[in-house]
């Protein structure tokens, strides 16, 4: 009996020892792993970070292929991303091949994950200290990652190839934490045939909410299952209609949310009041996977607020369709979404990783791969290179994609982004379904978002 107890005690103690090891790792992972890349081990110090970048640049010890010129950056770079998933894997491969051909000392290994799983994996990898050298972030996630010290500031970035508003969007406190990789915007898609049949003039760039709502009413034919309009009732639409109505999401100092202002309430009404009259409701299936895509593709939706990423999906529909800049109200505003790429704060190969990212975001190989496959838009400043995009046949009014950029608004971002988005989504959908009044739920969401700003 005594022996049993001793054995159990030994087992318990060894278990505990292992646990302490794991805990210590948990707490030390940041400083421990970051010290691998910067001797100072301080992620908030930019000088140590950039010196780490240059130190690995000058240390060929880690290089694998050494045919490159002496001053060339070499090494293996791992790159994790989501945007190529589901159809653009080969396009990304083309860019990688072009990069490796131009930089024989660097080998890029790509790991692609579906968007839905991407951030679960990325966070765990960072927590475990196994993050890829470089990874992709959408604009909404960028703030929390850069504020948490997960990103290495990029040294000596030449901003000239990039569209200024985009590269500035990934600059925090004077440090460039990421490079813009691609962008896309939201426009109003419309089914020309349905407009013709109903005898309604098709939308144009001067439309306002009133024009849109009136047309939607005429186009809706519930007996035939035809809906006039569809605009998702969500955060990503709300911040934009708020801007279209002249509202501000935050106060100037960004210490409080202000989106439940009278302009905000009216903007929310514009979203939710159409639900059930000219716009399918959640009970009709709105919000289920690909619901709106299928509705538009089957010719039963006249107007559709969605992103230019849908062009490819509509390539073979048997009706005429086109796009136009979204209607505004007191202001014009179009939603813009951007993806970015960053170097991990723990990368041992930061210089090579940055070199790859610069190629990925600004090279001509990238521009042609993206334009040829309609894979969002390159973030470059030189508009002449985008000509190929405008030359493609459908939709006819491709110019609207660039016109929309004149009044583009990026989504508001905070560190606790997802909680903010969920709060606003719930306030909007609850009111749309009639469970709450927007006059109650939006101010409640505003209060909650203000509390999230505290961290």
């Amino acid at each position: 009996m005594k022996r049993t107890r001793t054995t159990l005690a030994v087992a318990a103690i060894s278990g505990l020892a292992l646990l302490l090891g794991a805990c210590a790792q948990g707490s030390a992972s940041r400083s421990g792993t970051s010290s691998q890349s910067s001797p100072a081990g301080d992620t908030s110090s930019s000088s140590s970070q950039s010196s780490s970048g240059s130190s690995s640049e000058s240390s060929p010890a880690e290089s694998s292929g050494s045919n490159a010129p002496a001053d060339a950056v070499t090494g293996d770079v791992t790159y994790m991303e989501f945007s190529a998933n589901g159809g653009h894997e080969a396009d990304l491969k083309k860019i990688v091949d072009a990069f490796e051909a131009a930089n024989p000392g660097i080998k890029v290994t790509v790991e692609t994950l579906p968007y839905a799983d991407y951030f679960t994996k990325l966070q765990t990898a960072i927590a475990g200290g196994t993050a890829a050298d470089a990874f992709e972030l959408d604009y909404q996630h960028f703030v929390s990652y850069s504020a948490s010290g997960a990103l290495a500031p990029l040294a000596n970035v030449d901003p000239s190839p990039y569209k200024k508003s985009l590269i500035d969007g990934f600059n925090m406190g004077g440090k460039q934490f990421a490079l813009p990789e691609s962008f896309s915007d939201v426009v109003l898609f419309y089914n020309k045939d349905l407009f013709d049949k109903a005898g309604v003039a098709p939308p144009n760039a001067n439309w306002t909410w009133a024009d849109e709502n009136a047309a939607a009413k005429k186009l809706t034919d519930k007996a035939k299952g035809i809906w006039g309009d569809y605009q998702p009732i969500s955060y990503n639409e709300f911040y934009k209609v708020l801007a279209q109505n002249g509202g501000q999401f935050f106060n100037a100092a960004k210490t409080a949310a202000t989106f439940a202002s009278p302009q905000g309430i009216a903007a929310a009404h514009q979203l939710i009041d159409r639900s059930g009259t000219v716009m399918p409701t959640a009970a009709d299936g709105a919000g289920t996977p690909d619901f709106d895509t299928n509705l538009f593709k089957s010719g039963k939706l006249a107007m559709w607020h969605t992103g230019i990423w849908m062009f490819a999906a509509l390539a073979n529909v048997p009706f005429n369709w086109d796009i136009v800049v979204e209607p505004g109200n007191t202001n014009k505003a179009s939603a813009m979404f951007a993806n970015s790429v960053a170097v991990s704060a723990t990368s041992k190969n930061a210089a090579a990783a940055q070199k790859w990212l610069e190629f990925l975001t600004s090279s001509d190989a990238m521009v042609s791969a993206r334009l040829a496959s309609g894979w969002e838009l390159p973030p470059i400043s030189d508009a002449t290179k985008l000509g190929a995009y405008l030359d493609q046949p459908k939709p006819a009014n491709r110019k609207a994609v660039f016109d929309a950029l004149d009044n583009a608004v990026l989504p508001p971002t905070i560190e606790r982004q997802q909680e903010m988005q969920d709060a606003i989504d719930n306030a909007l959908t609850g009111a749309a379904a009639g469970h709450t009044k927007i006059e109650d739920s939006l101010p409640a969401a505003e209060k909650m978002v203000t509390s999230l700003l505290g961290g």
Partner: protein
Amino acid sequence: MTPTPASFAAARSADANDVIAVSGQGDSAQRDRHSGPEDTDRRSRGARRMRPGRRGSGWRNAGWVLVFLLPSAVPLLLFTVIPMLASIWVSLTKWNLISAPTFVAFANYRRLLTDPATLDYFLHTGAYIVGYLPLVYIGGLSLAYVLDKKLVARSFFRAAVFLPVITSWVVVALVWQWLLNPAHGVVNTVLGALGLGQPGWWTDPDWAMPSIILASAWKDLGFVMVIMLAGLQSIPGDVQEAATVDGATGWQRFRRVTWPMLSPSTFFVVVISLINGLQVFDQVFVMTGGGPQGATQVVVGQIYNLTFRYGRAGDAAALSWILFVVILAITAGQLAGQRRWVTHA
């Protein structure tokens, strides 16, 4: 080397006469009732019979305990207990996974225990179990009862009922969202034709949880059926015969003889449904994502959100340990109730 004829004979006789159900603890439960507390009973029996003189020392026994326990204890210790203990530590920190954790002592627990939403997560979880368990149990038992009879194409029917068990939740969720579509789903079409109300199902906060329960029960029916089928088949025929001779009707026979003899299987279904039900996640995640307006957010759903969507791993760990205490209390109650409840008529 080979077992003696005596042990074989004994084994064979047990084969024929003993009821060994899936969770066939009936025998021991009965023994416990008759001969007092479990441990005394077993130890005295063990002392008397299991360890004949030639190897009665505790030393020897400790060796055997290690031999039999280590294969499971080592992996459980390494890959479950250590992460569990680590999560206690995480629960005392503020940690978004991507920057260093900071120690906050019990602040997470305090926040969760004073947040009324926490109670909602537990209530939603409870509502799920209360709705799911009777449905899946009665459904599974009925199917097992019917499919235990000699029927043409019985194997086909059994396989059909089992198919949803092996279908992934992603597919099941899609199908049920479509079946329960409030506007033009099959279910509401039928209800409408019958002149009944047409609920908003998963789009309506009041009906979203019933929708999840329906889909879950449908999916797990086959598993419960297999368990109950096994229980039914392990009831000796002569017991049924005796009841028939006594003049019991079909229902009486079922109520008084068959069902009580199924109590080990019933106990098993309840245990596993509670363990899985208290940690229900997959079906909620794919069917409603916790909505609409949080009406179906369950405890583990919130734990997932806190960890991977909200960057609040400390809160998630604290909520897990609150859940741990709740499960512990329920399990203790269950094990205490088992002795009284499981019969072996």
